[in-house]
Structure formats: C-alpha cells, structure tokens
C-alpha cells in the first residue's frame, strides 16, 4: 500500500496548502469556495458553483461579474482552484468510502 499512501498524502498536501497556507483570499473565503455551499457573495458564489458542477459552462461573463463585485484576479485564481479541488476531493472521498464498504462486505 506504500504507493497508495503516497498518492493520498500528495492529495492531502495540496488540499492543506490551498486551505491553510497564506493566500490573497481569506482562509474563510477559500474554505467556502472549497465546500461550494453558496455562502460567498453572489457573483463569486455563482462562479464557484459553476466550477464545481458544470465547469465547461463557465464564461468570460462569470469572471466579469465577479471582478465587478470587487474580487481581484489573484483572489479569483485561488477561489477557482479551491472550488475545483473541493469538488474533486468529494469525489475522491466518496469513491474511497464506497470501495472500503464494498471490500469489507465481500470479506464477511
């Protein structure tokens, strides 16, 4: 399992850095973007939700609206990264949990 531990550890290091390291967006904003729970200011929340659920539909206008609401380019860079990594992390965890359950049932 050594290789697998390295994969998960590398993933955790990425998540830990973007949420807990220094950034131009506050750690609270980054955590909200990661969770995509809708509680960021509206144009940013809409961009974040699109990144998480339908990224192929993001347009220039989504970024323009977020900029007009006062978000800087670097804040948007960070919040988009957090939204993408957040959704990916939920998928990864859901997959690993289903695998653990599928394996333990098989053994019993």
């Amino acid at each position, binding site marked *: 399992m050594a290789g*697998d531990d390295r994969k998960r550890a590398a993933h955790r290091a*990425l998540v830990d850095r973007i949420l807990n390291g220094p950034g131009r967006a506050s750690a609270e904003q980054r955590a909200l973007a990661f969770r995509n729970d809708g509680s960021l200011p509206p144009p940013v929340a809409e961009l974040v939700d699109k990144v998480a659920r339908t990224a192929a539909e*993001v347009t220039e206008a989504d970024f323009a609206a977020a900029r007009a609401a006062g978000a800087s380019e670097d804040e948007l860079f960070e919040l988009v990264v957090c939204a993408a990594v957040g959704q990916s992390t939920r998928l990864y965890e859901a997959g690993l949990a*289903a695998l653990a*359950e*599928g394996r333990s049932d098989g053994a019993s």
Partner: protein
Amino acid sequence: MRLDVLDNGYPRRTKLLFALIRLVSRQPVPDAARIVFYRPDFYGDRAKEFTHEAMRGPSDWSVADRELMAAYVSKVNESSFCVGAHSATSRLAYQDGPRVAAVLADLESAPVEEPLRSTLRMLGKLTREGTVTADDMRVVLSAGASPQQVEDALAVCAAFNITDRLADAFGFEVLSPEGFEAGARYLLKRGYR
C-alpha cells in the same frame, strides 16, 4: 486565459523558460503547463506532485491505461483541452489510436479488457453523478480489478477532476493536433513533475 495574470503574471525567468520551450518544441507552451508556474507555491508545486504520483507512480495500471482514464474522465466533464491532451498521450503510450478512439466513442463496445472497462464505467459514474455505491465497487472488483487498482484509478480520477475544471474555468486554449502530439511526447518522457 480568462484571468490576465495567467497569461502575463509570470516573473522574468519563467517568461524566459516559456520562450525556450517554444523555441525547442516549436509549439506554444500549453496553458496546462503555464498555470502550474503561476504562484507555484499556492497550487502548481503540490498539484504537479499529486498528478505525477497518480499518473506515473507505482501502479498495476500501465501509464497508457492511466492516460486513457484521464481522457475518459475529461470526456465525461466535456473538457476539450484535457480530452485532446490525454487521448493523444494515451494513443502514443499504447501505440494504438483505434483503441483510444473506441473507448471514447462507446465504452461498452470498445475492445478493452473487462477490469479496465469496468473501472472506466465506475469513474464515469462517479464523475457524472458525484457518488458511487459499494455495489458499484463490487462489480468492478468482480470484473477482475484489484482493490489497489481501484484506489489507483480513483487517484487519477481525482487529479483530472481538478485539471478539467481549471482547464474549462480558466479557458485553456485548445491546441492543434501537432501541439497535442508534442505535449504527449513530453508527458511520456518527463511526466508531470
């Protein structure tokens, strides 16, 4: 790209590196390669490490299989840039274009081994629906994929569910076939680090 800083916000030595890559490869530096150089301490350094582990670290899946998984997940996400990049890399790694085309056109009729087909199907469901069940996993295991292979595939899926979203949100420019070929050669030679 949709953020000006991702096109222009690089220090001088990074711009020189991009110019050198353009000169040597005679292709533009792909946006996927550029963004890992943007404030690399925030995202790029650790993203490269995770993606490299998932795609090139120890696994019973071949590099070609993992590139195919990346292309397949990207297809489910409708991420044109990543489908282009990783179908090219998978084709080159397998030395088999029709195999990759068949999987992306119709997984169920494609001429691939059952453990791989079943794993791709599960990754597609997870990516599309956001979840999979223990029963879905039992199907994959009974098709012959080992639990470790399923874990390894989930890491590939996680890496590309990040990259696909960034490609589409930031608007990575889709390359010419020659550009994707050059990128594929680079990824097989050097990996993601």
